[in-house]
């Protein structure tokens, strides 16, 4: 204290002395005392010190040339056991330890993998409360007294890094992303950081996604991303899900998005040929500003899939294998033998020749009847009898096995990756399933500082086999379906001599009931599709400078499809007398070639301006060739498909087509102060699908984003870590029509010929399509407004988007008056609108050392409206061909002013009750004259028959009483995913739902009141109406009325599904090290675990109508399996 008092006194005296003195001293091994004196002299500063310090001093060697005072002193005191302090104009010498808390300023910069600065990173001194955040340039600064402290760098989505200071004061850190794809987003012809996005682009959480034990990625996509609706048609192995982004954009044409797989745009990607485990990222472009870069193919959204490449570092071998079991969870309960026989007896009640009684209850016949058998069965004999239920034999618990093996690694110059997959999926229906063998090799090589080349090769072969339950596009007889026979097969025959299980045909089936023993038929039918696909990408990247890069890509996508079918004499088709043993064999080759050339220019100038410009030119051609033949009357059925060539009748076919697309594209991103962001893009596509003159289309877009959280006034709000507003508008196109629809086609076809003079028919030509040279692109204008909000350091991240999509000039396969000689032609006509709201919420609910819980909730609302159709048309009515008896009535209608594909039919009005009738003298019920019919003649209608609302009040039910009876499209869909982790355990739980869509349960038309004889019915039919059971809403036997669709069989198709559950345990890194491996996870995953729904059919996620116009139709679909697997993922 005394000392300081003195110093202060002295200091005030020398206040005028200059701190900017220039010191010039050059000494070697001089005493510090001597040097200090010289400094004192040159600087006019006073120096205070104790002599004891000087005793311990080390000799000083300095060479100061116009040095500052401080610098001079630093040099002198460097390495001395004491230090100095300048207090005013006085230099005080003091011991180093004498100051207890002297904060050291630590500074540094945090960057990401691409060396871009990372703002908002939390930097914390471990074990203290000292915390700082990085600024926009990624810079941080904090003070700590402990030069040996450890800094903890953490940022949501990035791996937390701990860096010991080791007395360093400048710490630069590169943070790697924990989940890589959440931050770098592929946007087509380039990628950006998520924070730089201006459009609506969703990324799939690939870590969660990879936990679903599925064959192809689309099966795991449902519920993951807002705005993306995924609905499977049914559960057939290998069936491709129907993915729709932001509502259907097209009326008659395909609505699936454009797939861009490792840069290769494909309109008809074969999802089964991509191993989900190979996928590095899935980014989904939704708004027009994002998709416009894909121009004429962007209107239905774009799914960008990037596969894994090599990573710098030691080679990592990863093995992932699982084995699981699948089961049909929704068997239908059928009538038991007693109830079945009861129905049969009711069907023939009162008939003179009571065939049902003769067959099933001969003991109940009058004794005079020749078929009377006193020892035969009565109805009571069937009580508690065990009946045959073919569901027992037709379904099975099926195994699924999947193995992935990969080797990935790299050096500074070379990155490589080799991976393979083998999958064997048994279907839950006997003799059905899928097998896949797949391999991928990627290589990226830096040739020199400027040139980089690489390749990505994928080969896969997938085989799907087994009877197709509902063949798409096939003209269909309901009785041909296996499920029809499985459900409908008689539980009892009434005869002891007949073992139904051994018979291909039940002898009671005659006429147009083609019911066949499905178990025998399924075991004998061959339906095999083998798809072999080769995708080869090669690229070269040349950096002209740091800013300008050229990338040239050449790619081939080849797909060979081999389809085999064979029906031996133990199948439904092969036992048919016309064709007998028959089969077919078709080969299709698809070849897609792609060349892309892009120039990318990136620069930052005046610190605040960043620009990223891409310009490119691409060419793509596609062609397919198909050949094959079908054969009938095959003599040697044991040879199978290979013996088809021996057949008497062989019908050969061949065909092919091609198209080409040439495009110019450009996109510019401009960022000002990371706060205001502008994107504009344009693509010009020339397509051979249009007539010369109409080939080129232009698709511009623009987007603006304001990162409000970068504004100082928001930055002050600590709670807000991110606030971004986005606006975009753009035009995209759709070109999904045939390759030559602008040309008139003259067909030269077998079936169009004629036989003269009993000769073999000559072929004939006829116009099969009238070309429309005026065809041009269908254009979708989409406006999108979005907001991204991040709170509490991104612990809560909310994204909300609203959009309006208007598709005009629709490429519609428009109905034509038949006077033209054809039924339809492509026209640019019609208009449709989709409006929607998407909300996606990510939260980190609990984040502690051991326990973590994070959630993703997303919900999408889409409202579809048909704005106009073809000339003078205000409605498009369509029927699903599922049964000949229903070919005369429509099941769906799409009306102007209404959503697409509404369900269409009669309004069900319960059943006729006794009070609707007058009882005649003979005791028969006669329908009161003021009560409308149900389409049958009045005399036929009895109590317990189905009743409909007579909308036009004409007393009769006809198709004029049809109205809209349900919605085909859901009101909202979404998903709720939760991740829990506790120490080494992790749990992912995904719920997925669809709300508001209705389904036509056509199964009930056949299995809840069909008049077909000896056809078993759903167990619900036991509760049908009767005088004793007048509250029932199920019509009596024979009371279902004429064939009509009605609200009786329309059901709410809403559901919530526990879609995926995955539970795993990761062994500790230390233990792994002991085992000599890097990591090991043991897990169990389940798919389609539980479904909550009011739908009475097997599964609410179903649509066997196969078009936008006929949604939500269920008949005899392949049931969806519940899968539970156990697996192991190990890295070496």
């Amino acid at each position, binding site marked *: 204290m005394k000392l300081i008092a003195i110093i202060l006194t002295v200091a005030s005296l020398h206040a005028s002395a200059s701190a900017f003195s220039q010191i010039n001293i050059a000494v070697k091994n001089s005493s510090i005392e001597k040097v200090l004196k010289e400094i004192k002299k040159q600087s006019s500063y006073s120096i205070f010190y104790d002599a004891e310090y000087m005793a311990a001093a080390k000799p000083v060697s300095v060479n100061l040339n116009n040095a500052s005072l401080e610098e001079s002193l630093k040099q002198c005191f460097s390495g001395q056991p004491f230090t100095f302090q300048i207090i005013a104009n006085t230099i005080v010498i003091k011991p180093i330890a004498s100051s207890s808390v002297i904060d050291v300023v630590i500074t540094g910069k945090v960057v990401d993998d691409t060396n871009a600065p990372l703002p908002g990173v939390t930097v914390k001194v471990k074990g203290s409360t000292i915390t700082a955040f990085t600024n926009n340039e990624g810079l941080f600064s904090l003070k700590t007294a402990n030069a040996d402290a450890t800094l903890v760098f953490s940022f949501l989505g990035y791996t937390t890094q701990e860096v010991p200071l080791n007395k360093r004061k400048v710490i630069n850190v590169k943070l790697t992303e924990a989940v890589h794809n959440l931050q770098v987003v592929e946007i087509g012809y380039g990628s950006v950081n998520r924070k730089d996005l201006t459009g609506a682009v969703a990324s799939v959480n690939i870590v969660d996604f990879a936990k679903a034990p599925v064959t192809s990625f689309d099966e795991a996509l449902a519920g993951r991303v807002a705005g993306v609706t995924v609905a499977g048609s049914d559960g057939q192995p290998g069936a491709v899900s129907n993915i729709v982004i932001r509502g259907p954009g097209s009326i008659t044409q395909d609505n699936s998005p454009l797939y861009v797989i490792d840069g290769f745009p494909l309109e008809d990607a074969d999802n089964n040929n991509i191993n989900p485990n190979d996928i590095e990222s899935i980014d989904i472009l939704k708004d027009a500003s994002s998709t416009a870069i894909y121009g004429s193919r962007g209107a239905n959204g774009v799914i960008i899939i990037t596969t894994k490449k090599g990573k710098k570092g030691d080679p990592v071998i990863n093995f992932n294998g699982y084995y699981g079991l699948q089961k049909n969870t929704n068997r239908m309960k059928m009538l038991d033998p007693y109830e079945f026989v009861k129905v049969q007896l009711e069907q023939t009640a009162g008939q003179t020749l009571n065939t049902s009684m003769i067959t099933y209850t001969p003991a109940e016949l009058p004794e005079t009847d020749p078929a009377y058998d006193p020892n035969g069965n009565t109805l009571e004999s069937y009580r508690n009898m065990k009946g045959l239920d073919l569901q027992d034999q037709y379904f099975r618990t099926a195994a699924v096995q999947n193995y992935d093996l990969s080797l990935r690694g790299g050096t500074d110059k070379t990155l490589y990756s080799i991976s393979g997959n083998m999958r064997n999926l048994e279907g839950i229906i006997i003799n059905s399933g899928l097998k896949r063998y797949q391999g991928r090799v990627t290589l990226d090589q830096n040739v*020199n500082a400027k*040139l980089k080349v690489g390749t990505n090769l994928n080969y896969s072969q997938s085989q799907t086999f087994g009877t197709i339950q509902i063949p798409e596009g096939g003209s269909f007889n309901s009785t041909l379906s296996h499920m029809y026979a499985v459900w409908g097969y008689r539980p009892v025959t009434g005869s002891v001599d007949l073992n139904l299980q051994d018979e291909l045909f039940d002898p009671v089936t005659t*006429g147009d009931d083609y019911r066949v023993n499905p178990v025998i038929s399924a075991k004998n039918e061959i339906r095999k599709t083998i798809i072999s696909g080769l995708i080869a990408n090669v690229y070269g990247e*040349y950096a002209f400078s740091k800013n300008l890069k050229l990338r*040239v890509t050449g790619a081939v996508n080849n797909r060979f499809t081999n389809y085999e079918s064979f029906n031996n004499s133990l199948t439904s088709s092969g036992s048919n*007398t*016309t*064709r007998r043993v028959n089969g077919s064999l078709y080969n299709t080759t698809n070849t897609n070639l792609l060349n892309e*050339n892009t120039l990318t220019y990136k620069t930052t100038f005046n610190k605040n301006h960043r620009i990223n410009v891409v310009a490119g030119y691409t*060419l793509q051609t596609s062609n397919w060739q198909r050949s094959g033949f079908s054969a009938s009357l095959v003599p040697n059925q044991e040879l199978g498909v290979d013996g088809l060539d021996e057949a008497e*009748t062989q*019908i050969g076919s061949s065909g*092919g087509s091609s*198209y*080409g697309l040439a495009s110019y594209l450009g996109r510019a991103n401009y960022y000002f102060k990371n706060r205001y962001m502008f994107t504009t893009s344009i693509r010009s596509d*020339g397509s*051979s699908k249009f007539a010369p003159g109409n*080939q080129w289309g232009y698709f511009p877009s623009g987007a603006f984003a304001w990162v409000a959280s970068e504004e100082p006034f928001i930055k002050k709000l600590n709670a807000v870590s991110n606030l971004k507003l986005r606006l975009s508008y753009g035009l995209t196109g759709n070109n999904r029509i045939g*390759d*030559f629809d602008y040309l*008139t*086609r*003259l*067909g030269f076809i077998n079936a*169009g*010929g*004629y*036989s*003269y*003079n*009993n000769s073999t*028919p*000559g*072929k*004939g*030509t*006829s*116009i099969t399509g009238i070309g429309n040279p*005026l065809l041009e692109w269908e254009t979708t204008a989409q406006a999108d407004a979005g907001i991204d909000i991040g709170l509490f350091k991104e612990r809560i991240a909310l994204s909300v988007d609203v959009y309006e999509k208007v598709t005009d000039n629709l490429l519609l396969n*428009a109905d*034509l*008056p*038949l*006077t*033209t*000689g*054809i039924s339809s032609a492509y*026209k640019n006509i019609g208009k449709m609108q989709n409006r929607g709201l998407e909300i996606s919420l990510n939260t980190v609910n609990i984040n502690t050392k051991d326990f973590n819980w994070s959630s993703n909730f997303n919900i999408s609302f889409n409202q579809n409206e048909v704005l106009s159709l*073809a*000339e*003078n*048309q205000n409605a498009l009515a369509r029927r699903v061909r599922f049964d*000949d*008896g229903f*070919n*005369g009535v429509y099941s769906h209608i799409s009306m102007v002013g209404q959503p697409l594909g509404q369900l269409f039919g009669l309004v069900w009005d319960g059943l006729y009750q006794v009070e609707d009738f007058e009882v005649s003298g003979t005791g028969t019920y006669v329908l009161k004259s003021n009560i409308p019919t149900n389409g*049958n003649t009045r005399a036929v209608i009895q109590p317990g028959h189905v009743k409909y609302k007579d909308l036009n009040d004409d007393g009769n039910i006809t198709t004029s009483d049809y109205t809209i009876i349900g919605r085909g499209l859901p009101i909202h869909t979404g998903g709720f995913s939760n991740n829990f982790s506790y120490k080494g355990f992790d749990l992912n739980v995904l719920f997925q739902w669809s709300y508001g869509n209705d389904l036509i349960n056509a199964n009930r038309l056949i299995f809840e009141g069909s008049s077909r004889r000896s056809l078993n019915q759903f167990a619900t039919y036991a509760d049908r109406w009767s005088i004793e059971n007048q509250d029932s809403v199920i019509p009596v036997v024979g009371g279902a009325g*004429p*064939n*009509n669709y009605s609200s009786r069989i329309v059901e709410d198709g809403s559901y919530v599904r526990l879609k995926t559950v995955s539970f795993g345990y990761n062994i500790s890194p230390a233990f792994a090290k002991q085992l000599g491996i890097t990591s090991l996870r043991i897990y169990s995953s389940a798919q389609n675990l539980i479904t909550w729904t009011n739908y009475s059919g097997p599964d609410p996620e179903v649509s066997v109508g196969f078009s936008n116009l006929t949604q939500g139709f269920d008949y005899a679909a392949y049931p969806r399996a519940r899968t539970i697997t156990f697996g192991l993922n190990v890295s070496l």
Partner: protein
Amino acid sequence: MFKISIMKNLNLLIIIALVLVSTSCKKVLETKPSDFLSPENYYKTAEELQFGLNGVYDVLGTKPLYKTDMLYAWNSQTDEETFNLWLSSGGLAYSFYEYTASSPEISAFWGALYSGVSRANTLLASIDKPDMSEEKRNIIKGEALFLRGYYYFLLASNFGDVPLITTPTASVTDVSIARTPLKDVYAQILKDMTEAESLLQTQTSTKLGHSGKVSKSTVQGILARVCLQMAGAPLLDIAKYKDAKAWAYKVIASQEHALNPDYSDVFIKLAKDQYDVKESIWEVEFWGNGTEITDETNQSTGNFIGIYCLDESKGYSSARVNVTKNLFNSYEVIDPSSTATIRPTLDLRRDWNCANYTWGTATTAKHTPVTNPWLMNVGKWRREYETVTPKTKTNGMNVTLLRYSDVLLMYAEAANELNGGPTDSAYNAVNMVRQRAYGKTLNGNVVKTITLISGGAGFTAARPPVVTIAGGGATEQATATAVFSATTGRVTAVNVVTRGRFYQSAPTITITGGTTNATATVITSSLNDADLQPALNKSDFFDFIVNERSRELCFEGQRRMDLIRWGLFVTKMQEYNNYARNNGASSTAYRASGNITERNKFMPIPSNDLTLNRLLTQNPGW
């Protein structure tokens, strides 16, 4: 060194790539279809014209026309033929006149006819393109013109006023075309067919040797039919009777045609895939049994319209239509006062047309007699005569569109109308048809009746009566059986089993076996049995024609149109409805006739076209 060269070469490569790119852009967009032809580049040779013509013919054999619907659905529900099963409303209900403007079958029918028109239009637009012999060109042109006319004839007679299109469809956007008044549509039909007739002068039936192509007689015969239709309702252009008579006369005078002496052989030949160019002037060709490369099979005659049989070696037939009792009864019987279940007739057509047996449901066909006419299947087309096996659900039997007997009856009808009463030629024409029906050329005079004079005595089971018919100059003797009473031992009746052939005079009959012979007399038939009662007035002759056409041409698709043009459709169908209700028919048999009202004179214009062609209007009542 190496690096430098890469750099240099790379720049070069980039330049090359850019050059390649700009040139290949054009190439990428220049694709040519490889899987179909373009009409502009086609029809350049005679052969290509023929392929085009095959396409025009092809429409005849499609489902909405003669493969199925024409005979099975559109024309099977009249007073001569009816369904035997109640078809549910969703299925074939349209066949019961339960169609509406939006029924898919109605638009399919309309569409098929217009596709025929459109194919002909496309061909005719290019007819002068190839360098070829004019003679061959004229024949192709003649056939195409005729077929276009025929399709328009079916359109006009079924739908009334229709859009008249005679050029290929050029645009898919400009498709609204108004209906042309019926008389103008007919004028075009006459124009096309008349021109065809002059172009096909050399294409005679004899020269063709088969009936699958349009011959000169085909055109003339169908022109007669068209003119009769025009002369009748709704056009009532009675001047056309003259033309009808003239066209029919041309066929008769051509000496190309004659009646097959055996009525049943006309249809047996069809089953055997043989031609009878004399009688069966024009047929839609069908081929195979559905197992071949191209399905050119027929589903109606033989199968749907056949004798019930599930045995494919005999010939599968689901036999969905039956004859009506009033058709069965329209054939004159020998003894109208007879109370027999089936009264004998000399008209051979009855028991051929009305199948008095069935093959049944057994896997091996079993001949089972049928005695109730309502339960008789249509027997006209019998698959047991087919030669192509297996006889599956479809067959190669041709469908006859014009027979010589039809021409004769048309001639007679037109002559009667023109002359205010039947002419001798009219009589002759009708009698030719009838004499053939009675087998006059086939069998000559036959045993008509055997009348028992005395029953004799002493006939027992051990001593049954033996009937012998002899003499009379027959080439084949008739046979008969005698029925006797076990209690009295006397013969009570003699039944003719076969009627013998070519009796010059009445034969003698002896009935031996008992203690005393029974005696009987035989009466043989004569020409008059078949012949039409002479000296009928116009109206009676017309009434006779009305029934005779049905007896001769039943199920061949003529009845509905005949009734419509005669203005009798609604009344005759109502008459039939009453008859069926009161004469033991099932409700299925009168379901269709109960639906007939004035509006059924035309079918509805399909709603598909009504919405898409804003100039189109609907027929009254629909």
